[in-house]
Every structure is written in C-alpha cells, then in structure tokens.
C-alpha cells in the first residue's frame, strides 16, 4: 500500500514546529500550574482529613476514658472529700491547738497545750498540694489510762495524724499522774 506522501511547504513546516512547541508549552503549563497545584492541594487536604480524623478518634477515646475514669473515681473522690473535710478552713495554727485542747478536755485531760514546731512539704508529687505540720502537744498532768484512751481515740478519729514521739514521765510529787509530751504530724491540704 502506498501512503500518500505529505508534501509540506517551508511555511507549513514552520507552523507545524511552532504548533508542536505550543503543545509542549501547553502541557507544561497544564501540569505545572493547573493539575499539579490541584493535586498538591488535594493531597494536602487528604492529609488534613487524616490528621483531623485521627484527632477526632483519639478525642472520642479520651472522652470515653474520662467518663470511665469518672465512674471509677467515685470512691476516691468521696474518700478525698472526707480527708479534705478533716481540716477546717483557715490556717492550721489557728484551729489545731484549740481543737486539741477541746479533744483532750473531752477525754478528761485538762491543760492540753499544742504548739506548732515546723511544717514541711512532701517529696512525692502526688502530695504537692499537701503540707506536713509537726506539732508538740503537752499534757502536764494526766493519768496513764486516760492518756492511752485519748491517744487511741486521736489516732482513730484523725487518720491524717501520726504520733512520731511519745514521752510519759511520772510526776515526782504526784506519782498517780504523768506528764505527757506528744510529737505529732498532721497532713493538711494547702489553702
């Protein structure tokens, strides 16, 4: 089969070359300035969607976790509130000595004097909002049985109080009475 032979004039060849160049330029412009940025933008949007979706999923998990934690923490919250309620409002130096005086008076021991020795912070991060107060409670005249009962009662009613030192001496003039010194530590929330 004989293909018809194209006979192009010089002018036509020039035009054809120009058209081919135009076509290449068109393709370049199309891919570089139209389709390229469009696809780039699409990929960016996809990435954003994926990122947001991940955030939403993790957030939903976080919300569910918080709800579950809320249910689990009921006991701890009640316990925490009870422990917090053990210390009245105000500076401990203002309420602790009178409280001790009243406590020991109710136990049949008069003349109880409580003094603040020092206060320290805890090393544990969990107790960063709590302070340790060291007190010295003097009972100049008490009998051993009352002291024992009072100390037991104090330890049972004040769970955040620890007796670190206990000193009991017989009064030389009145051997039926003892002189008692109690070094106690209380844990009180900072306010």
């Amino acid at each position, binding site marked *: 089969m004989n293909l018809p032979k194209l006979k192009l004039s010089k002018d036509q060849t020039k035009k054809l070359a120009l*058209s081919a160049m135009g076509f290449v330029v068109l393709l370049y412009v199309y891919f570089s300035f139209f389709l390229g940025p469009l696809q780039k933008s699409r990929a960016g949007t996809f990435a954003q969607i994926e990122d947001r979706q991940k955030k939403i999923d993790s957030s939903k998990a976080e919300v569910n976790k918080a709800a579950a934690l809320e249910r689990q*923490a009921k006991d701890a919250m*009640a*316990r925490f509130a009870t422990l917090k309620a053990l210390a009245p409002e105000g500076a401990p130096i203002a309420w602790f000595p009178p409280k001790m005086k009243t406590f020991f008076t109710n136990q049949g021991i008069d003349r109880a004097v409580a003094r603040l020795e020092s206060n320290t912070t805890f090393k544990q991060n969990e107790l960063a909002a709590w302070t340790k107060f060291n007190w010295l409670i003097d009972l100049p005249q008490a009998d051993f049985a009352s002291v*024992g009962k009072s100390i037991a009662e104090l330890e049972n009613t004040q769970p955040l109080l620890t007796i670190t030192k206990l000193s009991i001496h017989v009064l030389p003039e009145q051997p039926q009475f003892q002189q008692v010194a109690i070094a106690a530590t209380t844990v009180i929330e900072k306010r």
Partner: protein
Amino acid sequence: MALHLNLLHEEILELRQRQRDPLKIGMLVLSSCGALLFLYYAWNAYQTLEIKSKLSSIEAEWKKLEPKVTQAQKRSAELTDVINTTRVLDDYIDNRFFWGPFLEKLSRCVPPNAQITSMEGSLGDEDKGGGVTVMLDGVAAAREPRSAAEDLRQMLLEQLGKTYHDVKAEFKTLEDVETVASIGGTTVPMSRYILSVTFNPNAAKPVATPAVGRRKAKTKDE
C-alpha cells in the same frame, strides 16, 4: 466501457490537499488533547472540591468536639491527681504506727512488783524502715528485784512479739538501789532498770485500726 472524464481535476486535488493539511490535523489533535486535559482537570477539581467539603464537615465536627475534649482531658487529669493523691494518703494512713494498742500491751506487761516511771517512744524514719524505739525507765521491787525486772523484759518480748516484728528488749541499766519498798507489809529490796525496746511494726497491719471514712472507727478499749 464508459469514458470517465474529470474536468475539475485541479480543484479536486486542491480540495484533497486542503483536507490533508497537517497543520489543520495538528490543530484538531491539539484541540482534542486540550479538551481531554480540560475534562481531566475538571474531574480532578470536582474531586478536590468534594474532599474540601468533607474536610469542612470534619473541621466542624472537631470544633464541636474540641471543647468537650479539652474539658475531658482537664477532668481526666484532675481525677487522676485525686486518685493518686488518695492512694498515697491511704498508704500514709495505713502505714501509721498506732500507739494506743502499744500502750495497752505495755500496761498489761507490767507486773505488780514493777513500775515504769518514764517512757520515751519514738518512731523511726519511714526511709529507714519505720522501726519503733522505746526506752522504759522504772523500778522493780521483790526478794529478787532483778528477776522481777527480767520478768517484765520477758513479758514484753512475748507480748510485743505477738503483734510486731523483730522485737528486741534489752537492759541498758539494771542496778540495785538502796531504797527498799514495802509490799504487803514486807520490806523488799529494789532495783532500777532502763529497758530499751525496739520493734518493727510495718509487717503488723492487723493491729492498725481502720481510718475514718473507709471503715468504722473503734477505740482500743472497746
């Protein structure tokens, strides 16, 4: 055979040449390609718009969810803090040494022919094991006053050993004194002692009375 004459030969040739014009064909191909590329671009643009609208809806959902999440995270941190603090406080409460039961035991250990005149008790640091040291100063009166004091030491070892661990009781001083005591009309010699008692209460949890709020509080003398 019929004779076929082409009188418009030149015109037809010109027409055919015009139809086969490579420039025209090229322009047609170019236009077709352009149209295809335009359609492809339009399709891509449509998809991008669709994706952008999806992103907008997700953004709206996130905006709705974000305050809740922030609140939940804050609450979660707060609750975790409360739980941890309560746990540490509970440990602190549970690891306390209770002097009430100890004093009760001590009072039960002292026989009628011995007296304690002074007691100095101290609780060791938690870091160093939290041991308890008690110094007892007293007097014993009997025919054999030293054996009366020894009875007290033995009784302390026995009774405290039931509740506490590593109980040690040793005399720092045990000496006869010139003073005499009258017990039941009989004059008996006396001796003075200083007794050092050490023990570790940490392994003896049952002694610790429960704390307020979790378990019912009770006194040692119930």
